[in-house]
């Protein structure tokens, strides 16, 4: 994807090309496991390949004019190697199995990592590149990998989803120029897996809302005011590191933890309706930040969205549930 050309006909041709590409991609079936075969590996000479062909023509002309037998040998050796390199390159992709591991959810604006496992058969594969089909800078976005014979190797590509929700994977391109770079073989792959994108967590996060009156005298309220009034007790095995009071520990030489046992008993409702009067996406963003903050603080929190209500709880599973609800809301 280069910069848009300036001439009108080029504009038109770029449009046609885009449409053609979309039509073509839509025809590709989606699958998480793709075996590369003759049917889905394409091949074209690169610019270097054309330059190479021109070089061969000049070498041939020189050999003819100066009647150099060894010149013929050189020219034909290069021509033979170039031809064979096309087959070798096609063979580099052919028979390769690509498998996409189930992608982990991410926040909008963060990079989603796609872990692709490449499995080779009896032949070793070199210089296999993997990238998003729609990457701006192909060279930089490509992740290169060698797959030993009969083994697996993992490549990682990242893309940054713009909005929350459940998204289709962008189409991936697997390509190679090995061994001589005169041709480029590539295959287009549309993985079936979808990636869940949580709302972007508000940055910097607004302070957690005060607990409702029903949950009075809680640690949460105090925390919101300054937080230093928590109880302190000696470190016990299993205490999360973020509860360790490092400054105190450094002074006294003993590990001490913040005693937040009391806060666990209180409930905090994170409510769409009471989180500041702004547009929907900012609210979701703030709620996401609060979910994370509440989880960090170890507070039981419930989530209330119009039409959705999750009972207060805590833990990783609860956090994921909340974030998913935020991601998929409406």
């Amino acid at each position: 994807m280069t910069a848009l050309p300036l001439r009108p006909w080029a504009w038109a041709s770029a449009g046609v090309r885009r449409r053609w590409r979309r039509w073509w991609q839509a025809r590709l079936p989606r699958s998480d496991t793709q075996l590369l075969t003759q049917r889905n590996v394409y091949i074209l000479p690169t610019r270097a390949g054309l330059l190479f062909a021109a070089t061969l023509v000049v070498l041939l002309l020189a050999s003819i004019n100066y009647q150099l037998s060894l010149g013929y040998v050189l020219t034909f050796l290069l021509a033979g190697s170039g031809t064979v390199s096309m087959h070798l390159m096609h063979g580099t992709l052919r028979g390769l199995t690509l498998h996409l591991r189930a992608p982990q959810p991410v926040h909008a604006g963060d990079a989603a990592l796609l872990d692709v496992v490449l499995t080779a058969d009896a032949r070793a594969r070199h210089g296999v590149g993997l990238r998003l089909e729609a990457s701006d800078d192909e060279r930089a976005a490509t992740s290169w990998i060698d797959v030993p014979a009969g083994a697996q190797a993992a490549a990682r590509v990242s893309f940054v989803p713009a909005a929350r929700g459940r998204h289709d994977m962008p189409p991936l391109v697997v390509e190679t120029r090995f061994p001589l770079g005169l041709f480029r073989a590539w295959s287009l792959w549309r993985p079936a897996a979808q990636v869940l994108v949580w709302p972007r967590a508000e940055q910097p996060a607004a302070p957690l809302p005060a607990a409702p009156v029903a949950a009075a005298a809680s640690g949460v309220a105090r925390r919101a005011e300054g937080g230093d009034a928590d109880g302190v007790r000696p470190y016990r095995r299993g205490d999360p590191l973020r509860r360790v009071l490092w400054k105190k520990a450094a002074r006294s030489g003993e590990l001490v933890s913040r005693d937040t046992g009391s806060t666990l008993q209180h409930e905090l409702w994170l409510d769409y309706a009471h989180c500041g009067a702004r547009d929907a996406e900012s609210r979701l963003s703030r709620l996401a930040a609060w979910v994370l903050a509440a989880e960090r603080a170890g507070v039981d929190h419930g989530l209330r969205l119009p039409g959705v209500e999750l009972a207060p709880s805590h833990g990783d599973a609860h956090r994921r549930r909340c974030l998913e609800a935020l991601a998929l809301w409406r």
Partner: protein
Amino acid sequence: MAVTSAASAPLPRPAWPGWRHLPRETRDTLFLLGVIAWTVVPHVPRLPWWCSLMTAAMLAWRALLALRNAPLPPRWLVVVLLVAVGALTLLSHRTLLGRDAGVTLVVAMMALKTLELRARRDAFVVFFLGFFVVLTQFLQSQSIAVAAAMLVSVWGLMTALVLAHMPAGRPAIAQAGRLAARTALLGAPVMALLFLLFPRIGPLWGVPQDTAATTGLGERIVLGDVAELALDDSVALRLRFDGAPPPRPALYLRGPVLGAFDGREWRRSERGAMTARAGELRVDGPALRYEMTLEPLRLATLPLLEMTPAMPPIEGLALRRRADGQWVADRPITQRLRFTTEAHVAFEHGPRASDASLREFVALPEGYNPRMLAWGAQLRAARPGADARALAQAVVEHLERGGYVYTLEPGVYGRDAIDEFWFDRKLGFCEHYAAAFVVAMRAMGVPARIVTGYQGADPTLQDGWLVVRNSYAHAWAEYWQPGAGWLRADPTAAAAPDRIGVSRSLAAPPGAVAGAIAAIAPGLLARLRSGWELVNHRWSQWVLDYSRGRQLDLLREFGLRHPGWEDLALLLIGSLVALALAGAGWAAWDRHRQDPWSRLRARVQRELRRRGVDAAPHEALRTLAARLRDVHGDAAHAPAARLDALDRLRYGPAAARRPPRDWWPGFRASLRDTAMRRAPR
């Protein structure tokens, strides 16, 4: 690697971290610089000094930049250097075009381009310039040694190219080298096919000229200029006869005939330059059929066996026989020729009756060699009525008895060289004898001329071929006898009978190494030399000498009656299409080929599905085993254990290349034995 360190040696280096610890980028750059240096070095003797110096400096600079990981010089500096290269080339060669200027430019530009290796495109430019430099090396020499050195270059360039396309990790250079060699070897059949069948055509424009005569044959003789004759032992031509070869003393290969004499210099005569008239060559006796391979002598003359009346046509050359019996081409012959023709050892040529064409062969310049003229007139007067044959005999007899010495180091002669040789110093080689004989005959009014060419051959055959070396270059004489025509006389034989017929009697003293070898194992040197020459001969026969004629011979061997270049082209296209189909067939076959592990996996998966255990293709065997246990509990213990064992075999420290043969039957049996219910189908 040695070349690389040599390239970076002249400059103070930062601490050398060792080849293995270099960053990959640096290592690859140094390797490429080494390959470039190796490719350029053979050109150095012919490059202008500034070009060699500049190339070395730029390669060293680039190596230093790579070692220090320093940024490349700015583009304007490269442009300035480029302009400087152009100006210096113009200054050295007076042109930017042409062969020598081209080589200088390509070498300098390749070195310059290394300073600009930013993108992959730049690297490609270096590679392709490198292939040009390799080709230009062949303009100078196509010997086996050069071919081997250039093969290393091409291999190195291809290795660097492969290395550039293995972006992952830090592949070993040896690995890239193996992959490059594999590509080239797989490409070799295509190369052989193209080499054999690509129709050879003549030069497209201009004729490559090289004026430096490198052989024993010349088109003129200046007597007395040569104080010492260096023996050039290189092979001039090879002969193979259908039957027994004629005796060595009868082997006269006729080269330029020199009839015009201006007192100092002998040249070809004008009359002789005319095309021979019919009837001037009368052959007798059976024809002697022979095959000749003629090295490129860079003369327009073909030294053929005396006397060869007809020649087969040779592609790209217009041949004719001149009136003086010499075969000439329309241009200097710069490629190796190979042809078959016939000669007659018994022959007469030239006019039978005296005619005007003979007049120039009795002309002598006035004021030169007065004593010789007087001597001739005196001899003539002493034998009234003697014919040319008798007079020639008298001159030869004088030579035999006169105390003449054959030597390759006669020293320099003055203005009246013939007089000096004939009466005073009596030292000379074949040219002196032939020239003196001709002047003596002319002094007696007999038409005479010098014939140059080759005489004799190596005493042993090589592979069935008689070898004629440049050191067998010879000069003899012809005089005209009424009623018979031109007759050969070899005055050198009178002074040095050994020179004629017996070969290698005048070998130059051997060098120190050769002398030592000869002292240890006499004969070994000769055998070594003859073996090497044999290899060389095969090389030129099958590689360098491969021409349109040989291509058509090949087609004839395939059974084509009258092959032409169209047949070559058709055969070439047909074979290439066949090769392409074979390649496509291989790819199609390869598609269905699975490695034994995948095949076994697929079978295991099918079998497990039947028993209600779902399995995805990417899942590990041990995952399948765990799932089997989950679904069927203890009943599945035996087959699950077998799956685990297979997983260890596959991925364990001693990973097996293929699964053991008895695994599948065992697995099937254990599945059958266990009391597992089958999934409903």
